[in-house]
Structures are given as C-alpha cells and as structure tokens.
C-alpha cells in the first residue's frame, strides 16, 4: 500500500468508529428522546460522512468547476447528499445513517480497487523488469559500475555471475550458461563460450563473461523490447475504445433517467416524492461505469504481460483482440517452420554396408570443402576426422567431390558425377539433395541433405488445429516436391510452392478475400521479403530471434524464441483475455440493469446498499477477474 492509500485507510477506520457509535445511539433511541432529536442525529451523522467522503465531494466540485462533471465523484455526491436531504421531506423515513454508510462503503470499495489495480500494475511491471541498472567496465585496472547508456559500441564489459547482461555483444572470453527466460520464456539455459553473441536481458548463471558490445543501449534488445511493450497499451483494442465511448454516453443517459424518475413518477403515477427521489439516487449510484473503464484495459494489459512472460511480444491490445479471432494461419516455410539451415536428414546405406563407415568416408572426403552441404555432412559425423588420411581432394564443380581416404578412392556427389564414372545409383523417395557415395568404384549408398524441420513444427500445426484454427497454409518459394513433402509431414492443410515474394502478398490477399464472417488471417514469417506480407495480414507474426529487423518492425506480434508452437499459445492467451473482458462487460451491465429495474419506484425493492454493491462491489469483482489474465499456464 502506498502513502495515499494508507492515509485513506486511516480515515475510513476513524469514520467507521464514529459511525458505529452513532448507529448504536440511534438504535438505542437516544436521539428520539432529545429535543430536536432528528436534527441532532442529522448533524451527528454528517461527521463520519465528511471524514470518509470529503475528498469525493471536493473532487465532484472540482469536476463541475472545470466542466468535466460526469464522473463517479459527482454521482456519489448527489446520491449521498440526496440521502441526507430526505430528512426535509416530512413524509419520508430519515436516511442519514444510510447516506453516511453508503459513502463509507463506497470509499472502502474504492480503496480496495486502487490497491488491486496497483498490485496488478506492479506484478506486470516486475514481469517486464529486464532493464539492467549498470554495466561493469574496466577502467584503470579497476572494475567500475557505469550506466549502460554510457558504454560505447565496441567497449568491453564484464558480466559477473547472477548479473543481467546489460548490452548486446559477443563473448570475448569466458564460458557460462545464460538464463534467457526473461526474453524468450525458455527455461532451458543457453550455453555460451567465446565468439557467441549474447542478447541483453539474459541473466548470467555460472561463469564470468567478458563481452564486447555490438550495440548502444538504446538499440539493444532490452531497450527495444521495453519500448515495444510500453507502447503496446497505446494501440487500443476495439473493445477498449468501445468501452470508453460507451462510458461517455452511458453516464449522462443514466443521470437523465434518474432525473426523469424523480420528477415524472410522482406526477404521472402519484407516487410519493420521497420514493421517487430514492429510486433516482439508486440509479445514480449504480450508473458509474468504473467496473468497465478500469477492468477492460487492465485485462488487456494483463494479457499482454502474460504473453511477454512466455516470450511472445504483442505490440498492442488491438492485435491481441484480432489474434483471438484468427481462424486461418499462413506460414512462410524457411526459417519459420524449418531452421533454414541444411542438415543430414537420412543416411541410406546399401545392403551389407555399415552406416557409420559410409558417413566416415563421406565426412573425410568433404572435410576440406566449405560448401554448406559439405559442412552439414561433416557436422553429422560423430567421430573425429583424421586429416592425415585425406589426399588428392578434387572438387567437381556443382557435382561433387572426389578424394583419396586411406588407400580408397571416395567419390561423393550427384547422379551426374556417378554416371560419369559408370556407377549405378539407387534413387530415394525422400525429398532433398541426394549425395551418392561410392568407394573404389562401388556404390555404398546415399545421404539425404535437406532443410531441417524445427523440432516443434509438427506440434505447432497440431496445436493450432486443436485451438480451433480451421485452415493452415504453407507459402514457400521452394520447389513443389519439397513443399509437398514438408506439408504432408507436418499435416498442413494446404500449401503453395514456387512463390515469388510478391506472390505471397497475393496469396494472403486471396485468403483474406475468400474469408467470410469474423475470422482473421494471420501470417507467420521471418525474412525481409516477408515484411509486406506481415503488414497485409490481419495479424503479422514474426520470428524475433533469427528474424530480420524489417520483419520484426512490420509484425504485430514477435515470437522471441522462434518456436512456431508459441503461436497456439499466443492464441490461447488472446482468447482467454477476450473471454475475461466479455465476462466483465456482461456481468457488470447485467447487475447494473437488474438493480435499476428493481429500483424503479413501482417496484422499489432495491436499497441503497444494493446500489453500492452494484457500483464498487461489481468493480472489485471485475478487477479480480481481470487479474486472472496475468496467469499463464505453463
């Protein structure tokens, strides 16, 4: 609790004590026995009323003086002053105690409300507390703590165990494990050594690292993320805008209705004025739209906070809203569903041939090449390469390599290379680049090299279908055959192959057009050429770790850990947030309307107490419900 809240709490306690004493006296009939008892009682109850509510009255007056009258302070002031004023109607029961009690209760609710909002704000702020406070720089042989903003690009900084990496950079010396969970939501630590690039915001867990910075503070990962998330609440969701517009119309309308009831029902139905005034006051109390005005933005903010804790950055609540309605997801293939790097996907050894022997020959023959395909073959070989054994390496441009390994002549390459040497090859059902391997003129088998699927690519597509996404489409510039193979393996509903970058925009536009109803189209990509598509789709989702800056800039949502399976999680968070928002809107309006109906003078069963519940009670419940948005299911 902050100071203002503590002060308010003390005031409420004092007012409550005074009120309790007066209430006991009133029930015991003390006031009735005194001369002018009613007036003494009136004056006495004004004391706790003013102690508890003087600030409400003051702000109501402030609002009128500055021509911004329609707020909750005015409504509460009119209602409570009205309750006291009923004493001037000779036929009405006195309501002074009720007037004071309503103000007290209202203040208790308001205090709780501000406490809950503050708490939520703080937990979201803590979640995003990834900004480093200082950087350690060597100055004159001593380690000094300086402001990260003062460190120049290319300076060396030292990150000790338990500290946050303050700036992006490359490790110059040291080995350690980094906790990247604040950035990516990934709980498995990342091992880094010399030459590895590290992002600011990670926590150094096991060893001291010396890092040469590669960016200034204002361009570092941390600053960019913080800026993104802080600006997120500016792009307001339609629901949010609707609520603030609604609040502006709703309050004057209810005040008008209250006036109409107070004036017309005695004239039209001959009901006593005191009854109609009481109804009007109840109308005023329930008319406050705070439950909505506070809880709706709070829900969205909580949803964005929860998403960013999972490494999903949402650039505005409007995108969270659109994401909840997504029923078609289009993917770029390379870099999104696949890693975008070549790897050995299969080794098919001929009959009687040892698989490891085949790989060993291939890895040795390719050891001197720096072609990506050669590198991936070498990388997949578990043993060590003995360079002494290798001789007479010869590259056959675009076809393959031949070399002498030990005393054997190894030939490795495509169909054409094998044909040139009159070696029969077997073809393969797998799609990718085929490397045939022959030793001493004899065919041993082949190795298939392809772009590696991300580990969770299949899970991503299944998750989307499970989340109720109707259609998944893969868009790729790749060959038809390769696309078909990936599509079939992942279970993607449709695919389009051999697309030029501009074709992707057209494809997404076609998806947008063929779409009926409220469903939205999301596009997931990572490359520079995906940027226009990301802009065009209803929701653009970029891979933040490996994605190009242009893609991250153009996207509405950024996945920090590059995992496509996060999309389904993002959709779940968005849907949960939206459903909480809807629950709050329906609940608050329903309670208020019911209380208004019960308060109509011809029904007249609603009390002032019920009305205060309809105002602060509903607000508190709505805020508690909104706080659920913060919780993430792991």
């Amino acid at each position, binding site marked *: 609790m902050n100071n203002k809240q503590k002060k308010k709490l003390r005031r409420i306690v004092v007012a409550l004590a005074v009120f309790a004493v007066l209430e006991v006296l009133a029930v015991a009939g003390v006031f009735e026995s005194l001369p002018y008892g009613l007036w003494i009682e009136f004056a006495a109850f004004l004391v706790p009323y003013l102690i508890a509510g003087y600030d409400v009255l003051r*702000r109501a007056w402030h609002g009128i003086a500055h021509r911004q009258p329609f707020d909750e302070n005015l409504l509460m002031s009119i209602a409570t002053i009205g309750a006291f004023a009923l004493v001037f109607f000779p036929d009405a029961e006195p309501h002074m105690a009720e007037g004071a009690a309503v103000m007290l209760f209202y203040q208790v609710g308001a205090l709780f409300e501000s406490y809950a909002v503050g708490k939520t*704000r703080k937990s979201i702020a803590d979640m995003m507390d990834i900004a480093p406070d200082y950087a350690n720089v060597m100055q004159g042989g001593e380690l000094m703590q300086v402001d990260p903003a003062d460190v120049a690009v290319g300076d060396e900084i030292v990150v000790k165990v338990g500290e946050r990496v303050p700036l992006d950079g490359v490790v110059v010396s040291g080995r350690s494990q980094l906790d990247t969970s604040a950035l990516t939501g990934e709980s498995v630590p990342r091992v880094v050594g010399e030459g590895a690039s590290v992002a600011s915001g990670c926590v150094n867990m096991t060893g001291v690292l010396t890092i040469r910075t590669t960016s200034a503070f204002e361009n570092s990962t941390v600053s960019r993320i913080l800026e993104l998330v802080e600006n997120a609440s500016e792009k307001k969701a339609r629901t949010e805008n609707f609520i603030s517009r609604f609040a502006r119309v709703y309050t004057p309308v209810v005040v008008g209705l209250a006036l109409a009831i107070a004036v017309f029902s005695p004239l039209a139905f001959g009901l006593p004025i005191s009854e109609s005034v009481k109804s009007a006051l109840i109308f005023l109390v329930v008319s406050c739209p705070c439950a909505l005005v506070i809880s709706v933005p709070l829900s969205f903010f909580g949803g964005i906070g929860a998403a960013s804790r999972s490494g999903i950055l949402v650039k505005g609540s409007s995108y969270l809203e659109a994401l909840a309605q997504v029923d078609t997801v289009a993917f770029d293939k390379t870099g999104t569903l696949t890693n975008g790097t070549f790897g050995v996907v299969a080794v098919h050894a001929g009959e009687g041939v040892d698989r490891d022997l085949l790989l060993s020959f291939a890895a040795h023959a390719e050891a001197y090449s720096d072609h990506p395909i050669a590198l991936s073959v070498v990388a997949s070989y578990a043993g060590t390469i003995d360079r002494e054994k290798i001789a007479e390496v010869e590259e056959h441009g675009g076809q393959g390599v031949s070399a002498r390994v030990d005393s054997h002549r190894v030939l490795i390459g495509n169909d054409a290379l094998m044909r040139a040497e009159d070696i029969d090859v077997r073809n393969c059902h797998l799609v990718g680049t085929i490397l045939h391997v022959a030793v001493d003129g004899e065919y041993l088998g082949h190795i298939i090299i392809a772009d590696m699927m991300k580990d969770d690519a299949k899970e991503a597509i299944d998750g989307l279908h499970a989340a109720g996404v109707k259609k998944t489409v893969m868009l790729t510039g790749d060959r038809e055959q390769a696309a078909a193979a990936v599509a079939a393996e992942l279970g993607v509903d449709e695919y389009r192959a051999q697309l030029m970058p501009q074709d992707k925009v057209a494809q997404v536009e076609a998806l947008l057009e063929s779409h009926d109803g409220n469903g939205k189209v999301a596009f997931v990509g990572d490359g520079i050429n995906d940027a226009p598509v990301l802009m065009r789709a209803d929701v653009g989702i970029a891979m933040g770790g490996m994605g190009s800056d242009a893609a991250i800039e153009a996207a509405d949502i950024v996945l920090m850990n590059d995992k496509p399976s996060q999309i389904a999680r993002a959709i779940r968070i968005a849907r949960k947030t939206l459903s909480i928002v809807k629950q709050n809107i329906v609940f608050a309006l329903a309670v208020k309307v019911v209380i208004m109906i019960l308060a109509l003078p011809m029904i007249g069963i609603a009390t002032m107490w019920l009305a205060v519940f309809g105002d602060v009670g509903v607000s508190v419940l709505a805020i508690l419900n909104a706080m659920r948005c913060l919780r993430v299911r792991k």
Partner: protein
Amino acid sequence: MRKAFKLDGEICANCAGKIQAGIEKLPGVNKASVNAMTLKFTLDAEDGAFDEALETSLKLFADIEPDCEVLV
C-alpha cells in the same frame, strides 16, 4: 525534444485519454501519451515550445485528475 515523466497516484484510462487529447492540441506538440497502465507521461514537442507545453500539460493534469501528480 522528447521527454518521459513518471506519474504518481492513480489515473483512470478515461482521464488519461482526456488529458492526452488536450495536450496533443497544444501548439508545438508533436505527440503526447498519457499511459494509465504504466503510469508514464511522454511529451514530444518542438524545442522552442517544449517548456510552455509542459507547463500547460501540468495544468491539464491538475484540472482533470488532481490526485495524479507528474514527477518533473
């Protein structure tokens, strides 16, 4: 010139919106944002007009939400 200020005390989204709209109408102001969730007020105004715009902004805060103080 662009400068960010922290806010002390509560402010509802509604008042924040009113204040922001009011500030954005001031002469020399390029962009203003009053963020009720992060309790942050950012003012982006021409160098020459900044001080005056800031002063008027503070008055707007005091008028519309007297409980919310801008920490200058």
